[in-house]
Structure formats: C-alpha cells, structure tokens
C-alpha cells in the first residue's frame, strides 16, 4: 500500500472519528440536566419577559426540533460558524482572546517542559543505574502523584503570599487596564511576571512524564548492537549519544511533542482556575458551570479537530523521519 492510499485511508478515519466526537458532544450537551433550553430559561427568566425569551431562544436556535438542531450544529461547526455565547457575545471573539492567552501560558510551559524533560531524560538514561538516574526517575514518579491543584496552591502560597515575589492571580498588572503599555519590553516583562507561577506549576506537573519517556526511548537504543559497534570503532561517546542514539530515540518523543503542541489549545483547566488565568481552561470550566453550550461545542470541536490532525501529522512524520517504516 502506497503513501497516497495510506493518507486517503487515514483521512476517512479522521472524518469518522471527528463525526463520532461531534455527535457524542451533541448528545452529551443535550443530556446535561434539564437540557440547555431549560437551563438557559431558568437562568434568564427572572430578568426578562416571555416575548424576549422566545426571541432569544429563536436567536440561539433552541426552538427547532432536535434533528434539525443536530444538522445545524454539525454544519455550523464545519463552517466555523460558532454562533453566540448565551452570555457574552460571539463565541469566536470570546475564544480568540482566550486562545492567545492560553497559548502564551501553555507555549511557555510546554517549551520549558519539553527542553528540560528531554535533557534530564537523556542524562538519566545515559547515567542509568546511577544515583542521578534514580533521583530523576523517583522525582518524575513523584510528579505523577502530586495533585496539581495542591502543588500549585503551595507554590502560590510560598511565592505569592509568603515571599511576595509574584502576583497570585490575574494576567497583567492592574494598572494596565487604563494604560496599556506600548513598548514590547514592558509588555513582556509584565506578562512574564504574571505567567511565572502558573508556568512553574505546569512545568513541575508535566516534566516527569517527559523525563520518563525520553529515558525509556534512549535506554531502548543505548543497549542496541550498533552502539557497541560504534564504541568498538572508537566513536566518541558524545557522538554516539547525539548522532546515533538520539536520532533513533527521537521518534516517539517527536510524536509526543506534536500531540502536546496540539493539546495546548485546550489550556489547563485546573491551573488556570487556581491562578484565575483567563485562558481556554478557565473558559471551559466557566462555560460548563453556565451550561453555555455554544462555547463548549466550539471548544470541544477545536480541541478535538486539532488532536485528530496532530495524530495524523505524527503518523506521517514517523514515516518521513524513519525510512524503515512502510505504510500499510
């Protein structure tokens, strides 16, 4: 089977999975207690007249029968027409702001995590069996067991409340609300100052996984025969590690990086809630609390779509990077 056929088949799979995911979302959102209509009416009825309420229902398309709404829902998502939030304007506008902020936070955190994780993982594998190795492995296992909200809270307590080094929540200095900084340097420093604690929390929480993954991948290769051959030929250890082992070990790591990058857009619900960071995670959490179905549909659609595409890209990359792999 050639590459073209593989791609065609995968695209069909992707469409099926996407359709399944969208349908499931539609079912779940309509299953939420009392259905979105009732929830919405309940929240709003105290504040408005019946006519206005019907008008609004019409506006959000809540008066149509279920199957029509389903078709409408799929069509809207596919055409990137996300409609209006029940509470705060156009979903696309709402999301655009949050996506930018979340990408700042997640991008910074993922960047540090991946670099740090790969570096430490390689060191651990290279010095396998040593004290450094056990310390790194145990440390990584440790990060798996700490609840992130608690870890984040302790970081917040120590660095924000006790030492007063960083702000405990928010996204930029309050003074900026009236006087948005014009030069890029002030902006960057102000943002970084507010990003520091959530970033540290996220890095601590996720770095363990990267260390273990890298370590396992490198270990798998470092014991291979070709390494012994290279050593026997007198190739420098450094060259063996970076030229030979890392090249082979990098495949699963690259897959994970692609998936992680795609996953960034979803934000981090718990960290963002903890530090009151107005990103996608907090938006998701608040929308669930408000039964804001249009927003939730859009968030689920975008994150799902990106994950599906990332999986596809990762599979393709595998073949590009490793000529041994044949599709089919």
């Amino acid at each position, binding site marked *: 089977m050639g590459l073209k056929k593989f791609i065609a088949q995968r695209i069909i799979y992707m469409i099926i999975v996407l359709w*399944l995911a969208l349908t499931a979302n539609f079912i779940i*959102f309509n299953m939420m207690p009392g259905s979105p209509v009732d929830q919405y009416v309940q929240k709003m009825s105290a504040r408005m007249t019946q006519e206005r309420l019907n008008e609004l229902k019409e506006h959000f398309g809540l008066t149509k029968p279920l199957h029509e709404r389903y078709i409408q829902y799929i069509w809207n998502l596919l055409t990137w027409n996300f409609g209006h939030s029940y509470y705060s304007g156009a979903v696309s506008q709402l999301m655009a702001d949050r996506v930018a902020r979340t990408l700042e936070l997640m991008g910074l955190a993922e960047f540090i995590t991946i670099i740090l994780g790969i570096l430490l993982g390689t060191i651990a594998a290279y010095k396998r069996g040593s004290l450094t190795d056990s310390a790194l492995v145990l440390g990584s296992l440790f990060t798996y*067991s700490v609840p992130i*909200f608690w870890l984040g809270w302790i970081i917040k307590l120590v660095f924000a409340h006790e030492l007063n080094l960083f702000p405990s929540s928010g996204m930029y200095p309050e003074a900026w609300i009236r006087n948005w900084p014009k030069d890029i340097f002030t902006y960057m420093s102000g943002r970084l100052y507010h990003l520091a604690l959530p970033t540290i929390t996220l890095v601590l929480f996720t770095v363990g996984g990267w260390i273990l993954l890298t370590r396992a991948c490198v270990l798998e290769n470092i014991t291979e025969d070709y390494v012994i051959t290279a050593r026997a030929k007198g190739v420098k250890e450094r060259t063996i590690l970076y030229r030979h082992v890392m090249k082979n070990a990098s495949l699963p790591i690259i897959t994970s990086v692609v998936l992680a990058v795609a996953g960034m857009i979803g934000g981090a619900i718990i960290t963002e809630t903890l530090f009151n960071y107005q990103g996608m995670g907090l938006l998701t959490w608040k929308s669930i609390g408000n039964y804001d179905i249009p927003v939730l549909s859009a*968030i689920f659609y975008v994150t799902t779509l990106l994950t599906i595409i990332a999986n596809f890209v990762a599979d393709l990359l595998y073949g590009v990077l490793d000529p041994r792999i044949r599709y089919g």
Partner: protein
Amino acid sequence: MALRKEKIKFTLKRFKGFWTQYSKSKQGILGLAIVIGYVILAVIAPYLSPYEPYAPKLKGYYPAGTNPKIATYLAVPIWYKTLLGMKDLSENLFPIKDHAMSTVETITSQWHWTQTKGATITPSPNKGDREDACIEINFTEPTTVQVWVTFNYPYKNSPKEFCIHISVLVQDKADITVSIAKGEVDTYTEQVRDISSGKWTHRFIKSGVASPKLMAQTFPEPGEYSLKIKVTSYGNNTVRLDNIDLLIYGEAFGLLGTDGNVDRPRDIFTTLIYGTRISLIVGLLSAAISTFLGLLIGLISGYIGGMVDEALMRFADFLLVLPTLPLLIVLIVATSATFWNLILIISFLGWMVFARQIRSMVLSLKERTFIEAAKVSGASTSYIISKHLMPNVFALVYITLATSVPGAIITEASLSWLGLFDPSIVSWGRMLNEFTNSQAMILPFSQYWFWVIPPGLAIMTLAIAFILIGYALDEILNPKLRKR
C-alpha cells in the same frame, strides 16, 4: 480432586516465587506497606475516632435544636500544647456531667442552691421534660433564687466560644437569667428569652464565634468559675429546670485540629481517615473496571479482528481525541456528581490505552503456533481467549491495575477540588475545595495549615504507594525489563 490439589499447589508455588522476587524490591515493599497502612486506617476508622466525618455533633440530649458542634472552627491541633510548648492554649471543657439530669443523684452531686424564704428548691425524680429528674422550684411569694454549679477552668488562655443549653418550664411568668461568674463577680449574663408558660421551653444561648473580647471578659484567667441560673418569680409559681449544659470550646482540639466550617466544624483527623476509604474505593474500583474493560476490548478486538476490531478501535480513538478533563467534567455535570457516577465515568474514560496495548500483544500472539494448534484441535474462540491468550497478557493486567490507581485517585481529587463531589461524602479533594472556597487564605499560614497540608499529603502518599507497587511489578513481570 488430586488434580485440583496439584493446581492449588502450583499456584501457591508460583506465588511464592513471585513473592521472593517482589520482596527484593525495596520500593515495592514500601509501596505495599503504605497501601496496607491506609487500608487498615480505612477499615478501623470508626474505632479511631468517635466523631462522624461529615457533620459531627456532640452526643446527648439537646432538645433546643440540632446537637451542638464538637469544637470551634479552625481549632489548632492538641499537640501544640506539648510538642510546641504552647501550654496556655485552652481546650474543650464540658464541666457538667449528665446534663440531661437523668437521676436525682447527678443533680445533688453537682448543683448547689441556698433555700430562700418564699421558695423551696428540690430535685424532683420524675418531673423533667422526659419524665426524668429535674430541679423544681416552688415559689409562694415574689423572690429571686439561684442555683449554680461550680467548676475549675484550668487554662490560661480564654476559650474561643461557649454555648449554654437550658430547658425551663414555668407555671406563671418568671425571669430566668443565666450567668457565668468568677468568684462572686458575674462575668457573663444573659436572659433566657421568650419563655412560654405551662410548657417546656428549650434554649441554646451561644456566645457567637468571633468575639475574643467577650471571651477574655468571661474567662479572664484560670480558676474557679460557676454557672448560675437566677430565677425571679412575681408570685405563686412553679419553675422547673432541666438539661442545663455548658459547653466551653477551646482553641486546641483533636489530632489535627478542626476545619473552617464555622457552623459545624469537622475534626480533620476523622475526615482524613474516612477520606481514605473514598480514595481507596475510587482508586481501586476505577482501576479495576477500566483495566477489565481494556482487557476485554483488547482481547476481542485483537483476536476477532475485522469489522469488530475496526469499530472498537475507532471508538477508542474517538474517546482518546476528545479532551479528557473537560469531557470528564461535562459527563459528571450531565449525570450529576454521585459517588458511583464518579467511579463509572473515571473508568469509562480510562481503558483505551490499555486496550490498544493488549490488542497489539494479541495480534502477535495470534500468529504463534500454539494458537494455531488450539484452533486445529477445535477449541472455541472463547476457550482460546480465556485459556491461551489471557494467561499470556495477564502480567500486563497486574501492572496496569497498579499504575492506573494513582491516576484515578488524583482525578477524583481534582474533580472534587473543582467542586464536583458527592455532597454526602467528604473526600480529600473536597476538604481542599472547601478550603479554597473559604476565607481562611487571608489568615496566616500557621492558623490553617492543618486543614490543607494533610489531605494533600494523604493523596500524594497513597498515589506514590501505588506507583511504587506498579514500578516493582513492572520490573518483575514485564518481559521486556526482566533481568536475565
């Protein structure tokens, strides 16, 4: 029969062999010890603590309303007094014995009165509100009488709050005042209000929670105090007093203090050990269900193949591409957050990766000759799956069981922290949720640490224990890592 015996012997021998290997792993033993410790705590929780974990109340008869709380909110741990040398801290003091006045003896042994002209005070054996004993005062002319009980308040610091309970029955109009006195001087006085004539009136008199000034005034220093009930009648009258109790809530309480629920503080130690049950059940059950699902789906999908495989794997893919935490939250909100829903939803979203693993193992096992042989000799699909494939993948089942417990525990804690907890259960995550939603954060850390640090540490150690067990099992059972 003989065959069965042999079989058991073989299993035992295999287990022994496994155990010798396992016991060599220090991490594995540590993990197992921690888990066993937690299991014991979870089982004997009711014997370790007399309090209820959810909404603890004092036991006894308090007809004025729900039974009073067990301690004041955010009381510090009792060992502050010995270990930190803070000897001055006040403790709970409930000076009155048998406040329900069930017998005349308990009345005469602690209550005092002086007989005044125009009034006779007698302990009555059967005129109480429950036909038990009570103090009866018969007035023949207008006068004021006093009954009191003395007690020693031994602590240098004032208490945090106190609460007085009293039941009275007056035939005609009478004024009743309750007071606390140091020596002859009343340090606190309060009238029993709205007494209806001819029937029992039950009242709580509470000092209020945040009144250090009042406390310092009422209990300024250690010494002999008395609780006095003053009854003033304006003529011929009968007054009965029953169920008089004084509850003094101190600053220190319990092994880990109390939490910040002002109305009904919980004993943190109790909540913590009962929380062990929840985390263990959620963790183990979710891990078991998801591992079982993964095993089943992986076996079926791998062995049967074709459309079944295609359908099951696309279903797994679809669950994997949806954002996990948002999906969990949405599902729980959609189905309401009950304990069992949490377990089922966590397991429903946790089987996919394991199913894929099993499937790929089965795919390679399927091609081996022993399966061919079984097929040729006419073994059914279910027989091959259960007798030939299952034993070959079972090592992975144990490992996955152990390693998916911590994930489930942390997920439950995170969901509870977000507020998605079963309202009838206090889990570790919920303790932290209640902390986050309280105003305690503005206090200095020393005043609330015992509310936040223990549940977090508990979650962490339990999760770590299972990770260590999984790690040890992985080293023994995983054929890839097995040392040759």
